[in-house]
């Protein structure tokens, strides 16, 4: 006898009753929350839409986004953005469950920005970048459906090459392209360069430190442990101050080195210590049987770490590492406090407030900067959550 499982049907009223008004204290909480939302959101919306003067952002948009990057070379920034968006789109087609809504939202966002009153040139670049997201997604979806697996390798390779390519394109290094000193970089561009470089360098360093801390060689283990604990015991501002201000005092000649590079080194060292501790937690969570099974089939310690232990350990620590990356993204703003005259997104916002014609417009500038930080941080959270769910679904 087959018995159909009864289907629960809730109308709107039923849903409201079940989720918001089921008991007297839920009724109370619902009403209180509603009151709070109205009290906060209503005045904010009214201010944003009717009272705020967004001129300060519109006039200084270029400074906020790319700093003093020369206008005649701005195409280099656009090419980097276009490459990133193309990769994002391609990834969406290959891993729709992981990338999810991020790609279409970014693509649509860029297309909407093209509606702003800006130069035709920039508008065309925006349309190109937004269009590449959708074109990339369509292309890779088509190829994957044709079971062309090679596209996956190409896209992974693209992500790996993206940072070195971007740095080369932006700075130039005198090869083919004229050099643009990093002192001319600024705004969001600089925030992203520092945050992404920091992640890319800190991650492998952190994994090595974590493995070293569990090493059986005492000298190596002590070196890693001491490095991690010293860095974790010091505030980030101190580390940045050390690299930006103190280093040139101690080491003659180092004042002429690039201070963005020195800031990135500071951020990398700081972040790698925290990543090392996250990864160490993951390594500790791997049962002894996994190490034994790897040994028993004849894997040497390096293969066993790379093929068996690390892939499992890193999966466990995805949420805490993404947390660390979000922290890093926002902590890049501390380079301003450390001194050295770097003007990333928040530093640029800060200096705009000093402009005479926009006196008293702090709220607009800060809200704009905050919105950008939030969009980036939330995208990371969103993708990491879906990545976790994907792994969960596919291994159990």
């Amino acid at each position, binding site marked *: 006898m087959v018995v159909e499982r009864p289907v629960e049907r809730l109308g709107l009223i039923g849903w409201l009753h079940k989720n918001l008004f089921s008991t007297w204290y839920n009724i109370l909480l619902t009403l209180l929350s509603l009151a709070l939302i109205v009290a906060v959101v209503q005045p904010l919306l009214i201010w944003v839409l009717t009272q705020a003067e967004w001129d300060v952002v519109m006039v200084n948009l270029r400074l906020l986004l790319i700093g003093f990057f020369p206008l005649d070379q701005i195409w280099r920034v656009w090419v980097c953005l276009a490459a990133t968006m193309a990769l994002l789109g391609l990834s969406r087609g290959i891993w729709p469950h992981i990338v999810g809504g991020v790609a279409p939202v970014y693509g649509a966002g860029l297309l909407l920005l093209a509606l702003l009153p800006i130069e035709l040139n920039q508008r065309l670049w925006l349309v190109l970048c937004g269009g590449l997201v959708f074109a990339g997604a369509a292309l890779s979806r088509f190829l994957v459906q044709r079971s062309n697996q090679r596209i996956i390798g190409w896209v992974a390779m693209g992500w790996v090459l993206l940072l070195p390519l971007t740095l080369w394109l932006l700075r130039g290094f005198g090869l083919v392209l004229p050099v643009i000193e990093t002192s001319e970089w600024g705004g969001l561009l600089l925030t992203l360069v520092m945050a992404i470089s920091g992640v890319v360098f800190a991650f492998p360093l952190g994994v090595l430190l974590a493995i070293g801390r569990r090493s059986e060689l005492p000298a190596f283990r002590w070196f890693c442990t001491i490095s991690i604990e010293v860095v974790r015991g010091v505030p980030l501002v101190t580390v940045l101050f050390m690299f930006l201000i103190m280093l040139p005092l101690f080491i003659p000649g180092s004042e002429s080195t690039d201070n963005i590079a020195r800031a990135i080194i500071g951020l990398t060292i700081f972040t790698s210590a925290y990543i090392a501790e996250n990864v160490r937690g993951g390594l500790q969570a791997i*049962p002894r*049987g*996994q190490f*034994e*099974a*790897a*040994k*028993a*089939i*004849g*894997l*040497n310690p390096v*293969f066993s770490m790379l*093929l*068996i232990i690390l*892939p*499992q350990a890193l*999966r466990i620590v995805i949420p805490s590492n993404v947390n660390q990356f979000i922290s890093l993204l926002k902590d890049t703003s501390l380079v301003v406090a450390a001194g050295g005259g770097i003007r990333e997104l928040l530093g640029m916002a800060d200096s705009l407030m000093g402009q005479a014609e926009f006196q008293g417009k702090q709220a607009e500038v800060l809200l704009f900067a905050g919105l950008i930080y939030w969009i980036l941080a939330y995208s990371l959270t969103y993708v990491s959550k879906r990545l976790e769910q994907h792994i969960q679904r*596919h*291994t*159990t």
Partner: protein
Amino acid sequence: MNLMHPDPPQPSDGMIICNDVHKWFGEFHALRGITTTVQRGEVLVIFGPSGSGKSTFIRCLNRLEEHQLGQITIDGIELTSDIRNIEAIRSEVGMVFQQFNLFPHLTVLENITLAPIWVRRWPKGRAREVAMDLLERVGIVTQASKYPGQLSGGQQQRVAIARALAMQPKIMLFDEPTSALDPEMIKEVLDVMMELAASGMTMLVVTHEMGFAREVAHRLLFFDHGQIVEEGTPEHMFNDPQEERTQQFLAQILS
């Protein structure tokens, strides 16, 4: 009936030669002078109370544990701390664990092809073919692309056997392979092990499945307090055990 060698055995005598093997965990003397020789193609069942050193003994044979006194020689190579010897021996000795210890982040097929590809350096195509043949042999060829977490315990243990066999080992070690299984899954694993024994594999099996021992084993070792208390053929051990401790233990587990 005593198969123990009166003299220190020579390398040509057997696949595994253990001579007065001792092992301590801190102050605890876990193995107290194990001397035995396992012939090529022999199926050995090791049983005894928990803590008697039977698992420790077979884990010494592929150096998951390190013995501190005595000699162990596997297929003519003596186990020392020389890392190359250890890796050479590990690739000749397959091991199946109580808790399966499959790699949860890899599919069934990847679990089996990993060692042939990375240790034996086989091309992927060949490793895959061998793996699919082995999955056929252990009866789960349809599960190749699943992850271990999606299989039953009995299926996981059969994958673990296939993973060990993929290295084409000369010796298979089984450390209580059915102890973590639900009762209805024990038979499917024992069937695979019986088929393997019939194919002439040299096997050392730590188990309390006395039906399996009676039917398949050439020789049984009874361990207690880190020593081989008694050894002999199944007929000898089940019908005419000489030592009082063997009699008591068998009476307990066969009742």
